[in-house]
């Protein structure tokens, strides 16, 4: 089966009315995933036994008619730990690592009877924008199998885009949910920093990382964020801002709302078709009753530089724990403790992870801290102030998610700095901690283009309101990839 011709509500009704059991749904889902896996490689681990056991338990106790997600299979990115289910972060370092606890978001999925179907492929330790740095091989874009799905949450995006599941969880440190959502024609949300607990997310850049949902529709996305958001005492940065209903404003019209369109987001390096899609989107928002003003984010062009210092510095610190002692890979034929550290890390990490560790170590090292880490943190303040200025007058911001549609597999792997520039439009929101969504807004040569909608901190309700209004007014989200990646 695939999920193209069905909706969350429809499946829920079938499960409630017992027209279909959870076990049947999960079996069909697993069969489809396993038949696609060799070609798409969206998963590191497909958990057939675990998912069927969970399905059986839910069938036995019955479906809660008030819980839309009860019995629905969802995929989880492989840097989110799952008790007794291998979690690798797509690294040789954790190739055989089996966590002994569930991440907060996984606890919440299970408590809501959501079936964890498997663990999705990603760039190693979430470092990359194409899912090509995975130790387990690249994931392919369902729209064209010669192209990347984006990254780092490429597996989570591909499995939803290919219709294998209705929803997945990803993580976003610099665009890792939104950019793959854009490349694969689905909806991806990075919530406000602190909205979702990071407890059990394998840390990359701790001041930037957020877990969020990838779905086929804006409504499903809000419904999944409702489940996973909220204060958790085990992540001291998780916010105690109340979580009501992120879908509360969906359906309310946009009359009188003020939309900002930053001129830097349509400047140099932005593909012509991408630019056109965003300008068309601005016209649609006007038709929906909003006003659209050109604004400026003068420091946004420094976002990538600030991000690579801050994110890499935090990563170099977070990844010190991978030392070959307590868990994970340990190099063989080691004579001394120093040998254990150096050989383990040199053999266990891939090149991109090493580059980030190196840049971070350099930025934090004696004599360079002020010139790099502190400087980047100051630029971060200026960027945050740019956004504050815009939000004094505007309700939300629109722009492209990525400068281009999906590129060819292998096209950018040789040149790290070219790859880094893919995130130029998504990174500023991680630095500022703002909620942002990518949703389908056009096509270029048959490949999807994503529109980004950015809201004030903790104002996900407005982001979903704007996103669903746009979705209802357009047909881009109705397109699905063809068989065999022919679009």
């Amino acid at each position, binding site marked *: 089966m695939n999920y193209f011709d069905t909706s969350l509500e429809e499946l829920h009704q079938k499960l409630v009315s017992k027209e279909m059991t959870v076990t049947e749904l999960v079996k069909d889902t697993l069969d489809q995933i396993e038949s696609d896996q060799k070609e798409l490689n969206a998963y590191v681990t497909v958990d057939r036994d675990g998912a069927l056991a969970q399905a059986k338990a839910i069938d036995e106790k019955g479906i809660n008619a008030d819980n839309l997600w009860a019995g629905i299979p969802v995929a989880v990115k492989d840097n989110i730990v799952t008790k007794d289910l291998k979690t690798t972060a797509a690294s040789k370092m954790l190739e055989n690592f089996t966590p002994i606890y569930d991440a907060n978001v996984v606890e919440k999925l299970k408590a809501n009877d959501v079936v964890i179907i498997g663990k999705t492929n990603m760039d190693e330790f979430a470092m990359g924008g194409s899912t090509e740095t995975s130790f387990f091989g690249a994931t392919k874009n369902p729209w064209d199998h010669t192209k990347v799905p984006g990254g780092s949450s490429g597996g989570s995006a591909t499995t939803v885009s290919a219709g294998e599941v209705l929803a997945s969880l990803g993580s976003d440190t610099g665009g890792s949910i939104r950019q793959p959502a854009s490349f694969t024609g689905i909806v991806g949300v990075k919530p406000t920093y602190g909205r979702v607990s990071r407890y059990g997310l394998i840390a990359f850049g701790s001041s930037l990382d957020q877990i969020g949902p990838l779905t086929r529709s804006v409504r499903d996305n809000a419904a999944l964020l409702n489940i996973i958001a909220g204060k958790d005492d085990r992540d001291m940065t998780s*916010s105690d801002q109340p979580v009501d209903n992120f879908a509360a404003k969906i359906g309310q019209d946009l009359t009188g709302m003020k939309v900002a369109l930053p001129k830097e987001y349509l400047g140099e390096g932005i593909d012509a078709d991408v630019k056109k899609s965003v300008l068309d989107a601005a016209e649609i928002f006007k038709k929906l009753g909003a006003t659209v003003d050109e604004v400026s984010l003068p420091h946004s062009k420094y976002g990538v530089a600030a991000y690579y210092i801050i994110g890499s510095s935090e990563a170099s610190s977070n990844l010190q724990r991978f030392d070959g002692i307590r868990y994970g890979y340990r190099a063989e034929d080691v004579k001394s403790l120093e040998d254990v550290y150096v050989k383990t890390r040199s053999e266990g990490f891939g090149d991109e992870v090493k580059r980030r560790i190196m840049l971070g170590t350099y930025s934090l090292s004696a004599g360079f801290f002020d010139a790099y880490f502190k400087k980047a943190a100051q630029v971060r303040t200026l960027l945050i102030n740019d956004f504050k200025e815009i939000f004094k007058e505007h309700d939300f911001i629109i722009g492209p998610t990525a400068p281009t549609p999906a590129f060819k597999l292998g096209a950018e792997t040789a040149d790290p700095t070219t790859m880094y520039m893919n995130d130029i439009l998504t990174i500023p929101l991680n630095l500022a901690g703002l909620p942002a969504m990518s949703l389908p807004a056009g096509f270029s040569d048959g490949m999807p283009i994503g529109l980004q909608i950015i809201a004030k901190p903790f104002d996900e309700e407005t982001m979903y309101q704007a996103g669903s209004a746009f979705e209802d007014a357009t047909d881009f989200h109705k397109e699905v990839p063809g068989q065999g990646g022919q679009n």
Partner: protein
Amino acid sequence: MSENKQISASDVEHVAGLAKLKFNDQDLNKFTDQFGDILDLVNTLNEVDTDGVEPTFSVTDQINTMREDVAVNAHQKEELLKNAPDTENGFIRVPAIIDESEEG
């Protein structure tokens, strides 16, 4: 390629040492080139006047969340040790810390 760059192979080796990484000669040259490119990118920050600007290290709205200082025993020793590469009698085993091949 790297002559205009501000970092040498020996600088990269030094940083690798701090990060407990080691590169062979071929990888060292490749990394030095790439590291130079990355530094060129991040050095664009020098164009920004940040005099008197407070740095932002975190955007959380939570300040110093503390919990009770109470020890808990999760009774997970056996499970935790299953992930260790080498164990003996309930301990993690590592190679000798002191290099015994050298006197003194």
